């Protein structure tokens, strides 16, 4: 059973546009929601994370929006750049980590 459902599987965005990746979960015990960015041939790297006591967290062009009642959270990449092209994983954890299935983002110049 997939604990964290991530969509879309792939995403193509024009340079300067907004990239949006969504994740949903069921387990209300989850208390930490990170996003990872992975470039080809590299390990995933922590990008940004949020805890359920806040509804939004912003770091530069990256924003997590968190909806506790809907059990959903999303990553927004503003002013998307070709260098943002990568695979993005959401995750959720309580006493164990669960990753989404990943979204391949391509930003077209």
């Amino acid at each position: 059973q997939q604990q964290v459902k991530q969509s879309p599987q792939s995403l193509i965005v024009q340079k300067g546009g907004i990239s949006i990746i969504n994740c949903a979960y069921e387990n209300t015990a989850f208390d930490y929601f990170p996003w990872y960015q992975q470039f080809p041939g590299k390990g995933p790297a922590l990008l940004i994370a949020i805890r359920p006591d806040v509804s939004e967290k912003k770091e530069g062009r990256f924003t997590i929006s968190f909806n506790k009642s809907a059990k959903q959270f999303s990553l927004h990449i503003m002013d998307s750049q070709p260098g943002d092209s990568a695979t993005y994983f959401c995750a959720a954890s309580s006493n164990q980590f669960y990753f989404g299935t990943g979204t391949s983002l391509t930003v077209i110049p």
Partner: protein
Amino acid sequence: SQTIHQWPATLVQPVGSPLSLECTVEGTSNPNLYWYRQAAGRGLQLLFYSVGIGQISSEVPQNLSASRPQDRQFILSSKKLLLSDSGFYLCAWSVGQAYGYTFGSGTRLTVV
């Protein structure tokens, strides 16, 4: 600062040969350690995790095994590789479950 080392970066092995991948962490004590596998274009599959020396939990039955001979060393092994063992293997560490993982740079294993 904490760093994680994983080697080798790439490996091509024949079917039926043994495997040993090593991961070491520096700058922290008693980390939780993890082995993940990522098939081409796919997500992250947790294979093993360890919360201490000699303590290994297996998530997926397979012909792979893991060992933690030292606090900051995690080894992934196989006695006989299968074609289906090909993939991108990632080691990761964390301090407790409530914080993010730090991943190594990965090992690309191709079984031929």
